[in-house]
């Protein structure tokens, strides 16, 4: 049934429909309404789950690693500094091959303190072995959270469902909330491949010396590849039940586009409007939305960008000393092709600065009117910056 829901609550509804069995949370800034709503559901019996209020985000994930090892469906949510504090255990969850699902609300890293939208927190965790899915609206975030369990349990890897702070987490809009019966058809009870079991005692996460460690890492990569192949099949099943699909990547009017804008998160949604308006004026512009960031859908991106003459990657994140992180990934995906369009990088919206239609339109025209990229990244809309640094003698 269609309801007007907050983005955070759309995640909570999905976790309820997925029948998560253990939920852990550290309920203080930068936490969001996601775990607040779930705590209400656990308290009033709407959701039959064990709710663990822990003392830090590190503990939140540690608790789920224990719970998931016992073969139950688990969930937590976090943001920015909270995610950073989990870092050690992010590796542990994937290395132990536990299908934990976490919602990650993209908030900027401190200092200076900032709770607003910025993707650098989750992208800084790209090498931890988690599947990462970036969403653009409330419906996608609900659907993706349900799908995340299918994906996680299929390949035994943890999944991060990622949403922009405020522009999605605190925005109310119509969202179709499926009924439990349909959700159950898509997502049957979790059948763990292995678990802590008194009848079948096994050791978990033991010493892995050089003669086996490398193969264990290779297995994680194999699972990543498998999740990429499985994604479309999983979405086809989802579409069969719910009539919706979002795609690991989505190409909008890319076939004849000269410039393709490449986006993720809520910037995609605003860019859809910009592309429609520019097309109306006769501009040959397309839009490529990247939802699946890990595993990175390299071959799809190669196919979909090949016909364009220029690519403009819009990053709401930054890797200091390098460039926008999606731009890096796109460059890496294309570099071994004999020929590919030049990749322009634009940095926007850090720390929640608004990415308006004017900013996106400006990026399009800057790209269109340029003969070749002059630098790795163009920072959009910077106020005057004082570059002077006092050096000690």
């Amino acid at each position, binding site marked *: 049934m269609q309801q*007007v829901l907050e983005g955070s609550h759309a995640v909570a509804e999905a976790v309820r429909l997925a029948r998560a069995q253990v939920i852990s949370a550290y309920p203080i800034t930068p936490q969001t309404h996601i775990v607040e709503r779930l705590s209400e559901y656990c308290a009033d019996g709407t959701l039959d789950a064990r709710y663990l209020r822990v003392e830090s985000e590190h503990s939140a994930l540690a608790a789920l690693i224990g719970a998931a090892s016992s073969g139950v469906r688990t969930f937590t949510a976090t943001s920015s500094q909270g995610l950073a504090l989990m870092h050690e255990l992010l590796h542990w969850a994937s290395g132990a091959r536990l299908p934990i699902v976490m919602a990650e609300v993209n908030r900027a890293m401190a200092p200076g303190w900032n709770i607003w939208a910025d993707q650098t927190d989750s992208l800084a965790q790209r090498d931890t072995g988690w599947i990462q899915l970036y969403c653009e609206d409330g419906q996608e975030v609900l659907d993706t959270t349900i799908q995340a369990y299918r994906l996680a349990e299929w390949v035994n890897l943890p999944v991060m469902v990622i949403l922009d702070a405020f522009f999605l987490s605190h925005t109310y809009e119509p969202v179709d909330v499926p009924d439990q019966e349909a959700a159950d058809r898509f997502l049957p009870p979790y059948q763990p491949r292995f678990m802590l079991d008194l009848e079948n005692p096994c050791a978990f996460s033991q010493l892995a010396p050089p003669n086996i460690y490398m193969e264990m890492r290779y297995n994680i990569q194999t699972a990543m590849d498998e999740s990429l192949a499985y994604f479309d099949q999983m979405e086809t099943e989802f579409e069969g039940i719910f009539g919706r699909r979002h795609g690991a990547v989505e190409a909008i009017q890319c076939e004849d586009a000269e410039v393709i804008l490449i986006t993720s998160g809520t910037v995609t949604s605003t860019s859809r409007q910009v592309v429609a308006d520019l097309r109306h004026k006769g501009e040959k512009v397309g839009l490529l939305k990247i939802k699946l960031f890990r595993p990175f859908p390299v071959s799809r991106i190669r196919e979909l960008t090949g016909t364009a003459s220029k690519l403009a990657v819009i990053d709401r994140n930054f890797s200091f000393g390098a460039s926008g992180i999606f731009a890096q990934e796109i460059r890496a995906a294309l570099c071994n092709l004999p020929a590919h369009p030049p990749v322009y990088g634009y940095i926007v919206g850090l720390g929640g600065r608004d990415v308006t239609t004017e900013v996106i339109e400006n990026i399009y025209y800057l790209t269109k009117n340029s003969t070749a990229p002059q630098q790795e990244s163009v920072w959009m809309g910077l106020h005057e910056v004082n570059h002077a640094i006092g050096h000690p003698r």
Partner: protein
Amino acid sequence: MMEIRFHGRGGQGTVVATILLAKAFFQDGYYVQSFPLFGVERRGAPVEAYLRLDRKEILIRTNVYTPDHVVVLDDTLLEGVDVTFGLKPGGWILLNKPSPPADLEPFAGFKLAFVDATQIALKNLLGTRTHPIVNTAMMGGLARVLGMPAMTAIAGAIRNEVPSKPKANIKAAEMAYKRVRVLEPDE
């Protein structure tokens, strides 16, 4: 697409008003989007919240800069906040005020309406004597001024979403709907 900006103070239910109106407009067949000014909310501090509505899906996810209409839940804000900032010419300004402002100069070029939502909230025992919650009354006033959403949709949204005193809140909305006054240009 229509964009409405709400000015209030933390604790008056400003953000909740936009959520309830979003639900009421949705019930009336609109596609809706509502969100607060993204920040840290504190009781008594100036807050802003926004509502977008359209007959088709709303794609843009940016702040509201040029609202079609403005609702002011606390008239003490008029001293420190330019509530007409970015407001489109001819847009409505709905004020929570017992009488029209003495100085109409700042509102030139806009349509002005006012309703004593504080009095209505006090009469219906919403909030406390010092901190009346005026949001539902302002919703009723807005429904009259815009001619939408239907009062049945507003009552429905309040009934479904407001856990405390839904009946008194619906009453407040209905009273404001009847009492809101439009300032005629020659007044």
